[in-house]
């Protein structure tokens, strides 16, 4: 038995040492490159960390000094964590921070305030929902390790930050007059239709808006965070396409606007709300993403308001 255990330990020692060393190396390198990806270039003083809607809408080529750190399919707390990382990676450099708040995010699960989340953590927040949903901590730790060290999901995330605009020139923007829903191509038309319908349904099916929405809690946390870093927070809401705006329950949109405006007033923050902005139908490539032309129109308008 002793001989067996000794052999087993000897056998296990080699891959364990390699795995620990490799993990340490990857984590350090990835962390460094992540921080590198978040570092502002010369002249960049304004940042925004939000989702694909914002990524497509604000063109840094038109808005001087803007660095758009937005990535697709993020929730409010993920945006807030990335903002926290951006501020930590650029001490004293950030002058203005655009904090996007969208009624579409009401449907997401955003149950944890920013203060509870640790800053380094991109690994954690990628997998945060995995932990919560599966309730299998051991399995999650193993898959987390595998994803980070081997599959390099961390790396994918960093790339998505660096990739810049999400527009794809191969996609032809347009609007389907028969349904009123935007589409990008024949292939994605069906997807765009269901996308707008899903988004509207997600918002409409939520419980009635109340002043203790987690969304607003996170928004307030972000404002405090930005002020603590010595920057000026500006709250914005990106425009929605007409059909999507009409599909969402108007009472909810009104309640949402009222809540955010009240919060902005209370905190003394500027709120640039473009929810009611009517952009021509040609500006959209689906229900809530602007195309290249739309981004140009909107960015110019935004710059003027700023």
């Amino acid at each position: 038995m002793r001989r067996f255990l000794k052999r087993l330990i000897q056998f296990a020692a080699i891959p364990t040492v390699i795995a620990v060393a490799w993990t340490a190396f990857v984590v350090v390198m990835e962390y460094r490159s992540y921080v590198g990806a978040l570092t502002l270039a010369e002249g960049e003083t304004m940042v925004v960390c939000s989702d694909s809607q914002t990524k497509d809408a604000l063109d840094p080529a038109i808005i001087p000094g803007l660095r758009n750190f937005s990535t697709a399919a993020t929730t409010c707390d993920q945006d807030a964590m990335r903002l926290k990382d951006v501020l930590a990676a650029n001490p004293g450099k950030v002058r203005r921070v655009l904090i996007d708040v969208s009624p579409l995010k009401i449907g997401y699960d955003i149950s944890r305030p920013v203060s509870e989340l640790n800053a380094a953590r991109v690994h954690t927040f990628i997998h945060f929902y995995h932990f919560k949903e599966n309730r299998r901590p051991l399995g999650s730790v193993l898959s987390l390790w595998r994803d980070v060290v081997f599959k390099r999901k961390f790396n994918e995330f960093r790339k998505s930050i660096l990739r810049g605009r999400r527009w794809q020139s191969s996609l032809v923007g347009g609007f389907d007059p028969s349904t009123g829903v935007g589409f990008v191509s024949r292939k994605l038309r069906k997807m765009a239709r269901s996308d707008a319908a899903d988004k509207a349904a997600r918002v409409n099916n939520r419980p009635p808006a109340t002043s203790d929405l987690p969304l607003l809690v996170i928004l307030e946390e972000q404002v405090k965070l930005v002020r603590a870093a010595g920057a000026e927070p500006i709250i914005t809401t990106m425009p929605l396409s007409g059909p999507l705006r009409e599909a969402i329950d108007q009472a909810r949109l009104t309640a949402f606007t009222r809540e955010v405006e009240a919060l902005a007033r209370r905190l003394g923050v500027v709120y640039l709300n473009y929810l009611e902005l009517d952009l021509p139908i040609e500006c959209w490539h689906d229900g809530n993403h602007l195309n290249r032309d739309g981004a140009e129109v909107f960015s110019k308008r935004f710059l003027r308001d700023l």
Partner: protein
Amino acid sequence: MLFNSPEFLLFLPLVFAGYWLLGAHLRLQNLFVVAASYVFYGWWDWRFLALIIFTSAWSWIFGLLESNAEPRSAASKARLALSCVINLGILGAFKYYDFFVGQAAELLRACGFEPHVAFLQVALPVGVSFYTFQALSYTIDVYRRQIAPTRDPIAFFAFISFFPQLVAGPIERATNLLPQFLRPRAFDYGEAVLGCRQMLWGFFKKCVVADNCAVAANFLLNNASFHNGLGTWLGVLLFTFQIYGDFSGYSDIAIGCSRLFGIRLMRNFACPYFARDIAEFWRRWHISLTTWFRDYLYIPLGGSRCGAWKRVRNTFVIFLVSGLWHGANWTFVAWGAFHAALFLPLLLGGRNRRHLDVVAEDRALPSLRELGEMLRTFFFALLGWTLFRAQSIGEAGRWFRDMVDVRTFGALHHLPRETAIAAITVAVLLLVEWFNRREAYGCARLPRMTSLRWGVYFVLLWLVVFYTPGSQTFIYFQF
């Protein structure tokens, strides 16, 4: 609990340590095995523990009653019949009741009646077919006086519930496994090392080969837009290796794991895809079930030592029951009938025992004739797996239609990356198994040099950790 779950990574060392710490106390050690096995089983759903406890208790009591009875007396026969009814009744209620009631209701509706049927709609307890058959084998062996009934309930409960083979076999015989729980066991270094090696090979087959094949096969067979002939062929081919890797991988893990505890389980697979005819295939595929049906069904029916018509009947009975054992669906029955139809010409022509040896036993490569025979048998097995994999006879029919209609053949785009991994690992699996076809399992023969041997272990370990596409359950759990 699944072998490929992280929980098992903690469970196994704990049970291993506890088991050998109790090595000096046989009854305590057996009790520990029972407790560990119930934890292993109850991890999935503890409520079904009652079922396994009842099956074990009833079979043990039957043995006690039988120990004082006259051999093959009327009372003994009645007890055996009752025992079979109880065990098969449990299996029937959980596994087949809803299916047969549903089919009967359909039939009555077709005849113009309006039957009011009540379905049980309960989940199928994991491994119920396996431990029921194990309990039945004890009952029948005791009745036949092939084994003395045990008076030790703990050893008997350990025999029924021994965790490595509890949920997906091998279906052990009391004559092999029970005596091992009745005598003290000593730790054997060589056995433990070989056990670990067999487990590692099993994990490779399950996690790397079968799971990658599963992703690609599911993609091709479940995705309606890929229903062209070429996609169906590829999907079925991948499923052929998925089911082999999955089930034989489980068996290797179970056998290897048992060796860590000083217990030897029977072999369940012997390179079935190298079989030269369908009779040899069935001597090499799921050996524990095939021999079970042979000993407890086929031979009592008269086996092959009877007239031609009875041999035909017996063959169909054994294959149809074997198909139905896999699940309550006509596709399994059709699968059994398909194999019976392939087996009959061999049996009636007296050619079913032509290939009792290992293919190319004294050569490195097979002859062209052997290769042709192996490919032909593999092709038939693949056609059989098409029926097995389909959710309904209609779906199987659609797949067969696609497979023969060359007009539906089209290019395959956007295949998942697991397809390439599956293709490479299947090639590795076949290669390793070919050169180890005389051995008890895939990588039984390894270089003597420690560094090379360990290199193989590390590569397997690396593949298992990094090339597993998420945790997939074992196919045979549902049976």
